[in-house]
């Protein structure tokens, strides 16, 4: 197998209660790339994401993470190895910002000193002043600040892979644009493998090194943004036209 693909989908199907959620997924995600999974609601993009960290298990086929079938990974180990950001942030309301960011390092048993240092570093990385925010609770933050904490938490244990499920979906347009810009810059520096789910074509173009288009549980297009803009596939054209 190739050394430069981080995740591979091989003929993956998932059927729950006779309903097919994804069908015949067969594609590779390259190390260090930002792959944006684009599609309408219910097209199978979030399902695909959850197959990577084993929140869902395929009915048939194989997902491989770092050259090892996901099913051979211990799921707990696998998830601590992969960052995860979701739309509603899922920040722990009873934890301070600092403790929220420190969750995975603590689960992994990092030394306390190293964890605390790492938390400060990450808060500054996502544009939050650690002195100001470390001891606040999630309810004391704005939506944009919460999402920054969510990103910091996903990056805390320095995972090589980060999964992001519409992380900026619930933000107002200005904050969203601001975070998208900062995040695009961040990804270039961090060189992590990022799988990013969205239904926003502008977001896809801002962030993606490649765009994967989903429709009815199938991956129907996988292309660089330039190629995608020129795609003749009707669904791709529908998305492209929605931008104008």
């Amino acid at each position, binding site marked *: 197998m190739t050394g430069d693909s981080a995740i591979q989908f091989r003929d993956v199907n998932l059927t729950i209660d006779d309903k097919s959620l994804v069908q015949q997924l067969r594609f590779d995600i390259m190390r260090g790339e930002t792959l944006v999974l684009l599609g309408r609601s219910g097209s199978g993009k979030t399902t695909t994401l959850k197959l990577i960290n084993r929140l869902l298990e395929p009915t048939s086929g194989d997902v491989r993470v770092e050259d090892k079938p996901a099913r051979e990974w211990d799921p707990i180990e696998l998830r601590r190895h992969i960052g995860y950001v979701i739309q509603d942030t899922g920040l*722990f309301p*009873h934890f301070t910002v600092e403790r929220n960011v420190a*969750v995975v390092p603590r689960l992994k048993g990092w030394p306390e000193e190293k964890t605390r240092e790492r938390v400060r570093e990450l808060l500054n990385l996502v544009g939050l002043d650690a002195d100001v925010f470390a001891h606040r*609770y999630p309810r004391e933050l704005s939506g944009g600040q919460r999402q920054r904490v969510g990103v910091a938490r996903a990056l805390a244990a320095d995972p090589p892979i980060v999964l992001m499920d519409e992380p900026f979906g619930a933000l107002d347009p200005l904050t969203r644009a601001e975070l998208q810009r900062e995040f695009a810059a961040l990804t270039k520096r961090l060189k992590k493998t990022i799988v990013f789910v969205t239904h926003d074509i502008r977001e896809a173009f801002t962030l993606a090194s490649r765009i994967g288009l989903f429709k009815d549980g199938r991956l129907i297009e996988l292309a660089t943004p330039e190629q995608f803009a020129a795609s003749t596939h009707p669904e791709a054209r529908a998305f492209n036209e929605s931008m104008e």
Partner: protein
Amino acid sequence: MSLFDFLIRNRNEVLQLTFEHLLLVVLATGAAALVGIPLGIVLTRRAALAKPVLAIANILQTVPSLALFGFLIPILGSYGIGRVPAIIALFLYSLLPIIRNTFTGINGVDPAVREAARGMGMTDWQMLTQVELPLALNVIVAGLRVATVISIGTATIAAAIGAGGLGTYIFRGLRTVDRTLILAGAVPAAIMALGADFALGSLERVLSPGRAGVSQKRRKWVLGIGGIAVGAGLAVFLLVGALSKGGARVVVGSKDFTESRILAELIAQTIEAKTDIRVEQATELSGDLCHRELVEGQIDTYVEYTGTAFTAILKHPPISDPRAVYETVKADYRTLFNLEWLEPLGFNNTFAILVRGETARRFQLKTISDAARHAPQWRAGFGQDFMSRQDGYPGFARTYGLRFAEPPREMDLSLSYQALANGQVDLIAGNSTDGLIDKLGLVQLEDDRHYFPPYEAAPVVRRETLDRYPQLAGVINSLAGKITNEQVRKLNYAVDAEKRDVRDVVREFLSQL
């Protein structure tokens, strides 16, 4: 007497009953929490179990408490009365709110938070202890609060099965139609419920994860201090409980009417005055509970009536010779139950044929036979009980060849006293120990043909207790023959009509012996 005066004067008993009440509630809800919280957690992991388990807990809570106590009596056998069934019943009632709130509290945690926890790589245990339980804690405490308040209320009913607690006052008050007594049980119980509601409600608010300004640290403090307080309280409870079980101790039981309570007090004060043995009392044991608790060793002694033992417990047909009845119950109790009858106290609680004092003096009446000669000019009034009983009116009239001016009127027993005093009737069948006899100046005629079965009062004691405290039989027997019908009437009247405290009345009586 005002409620306040009563509570002050009886503060030791009030404190003891409050303590008993709290003990029932703490043990029952504590056990329910130990079972209910883990069970609620399991239900969140095994969704298929949730419906049936919650349904069963729901049904349990709809069973009326008295009925539940009733069911538990045969199931638990020798533990069927007293604290054990009360704690079991309260435990069952407490389960539902605790299980349900644990279940809904955990299920109510934001799904995004739970998904994040799983996605971060938390194990199920880590997710439960670090995320779900802390976030559900206030809902779980709310369940505990509901369970505790329900238990405090329901525990009052536990007095009916001899579990003690503040319900003792309520039941005693209901029977003697004494509002002060009812309030003396109800008000402390209500205060206890409100206090528990307030305390646990405050805890619940502090633990609420959405509450601004309550830091994790403060929550930990509150939890820690609360835990220590509860632990220390429990330890004190158990320690006091253990200490109160130790040492020389005798439990005197009494039935659920004034005379029985007076007699128990009489025995208790006599033992305390003449020995070093500490005496406890188990009151309000209705029906044959006294007998059963005595057989099972939950009480050591109580005062029984020979006739009751003879017919109701040993199921012999009634006979009228007092000596024969006493000897029979003494011998039967020894062989059947290993229980000892001590010497009769002296009075006989049986039907009393009563006339007005003025009538008795005018015709110089002493016995029922004397009265039979005048009866054809008289009217009689009898209670329903006397008219229908096997040892009641028909045999009575036959034995003495009685005829009245008109057929006897059937009336309520208490009304018949007034009817006699007012001259509406001339002869009634009252109760020989009733305080009203003296109050209304009535005269009891002697049953010279020994028609009525004897109901002599005498202490019954466990053989084991007598062996353990060899001096006890002599001490209690010092009361033998000391209490006449007239004296017991006075005692009854002082408590029932004058609303005086049983202990004072008995203390006064003993000082005059």
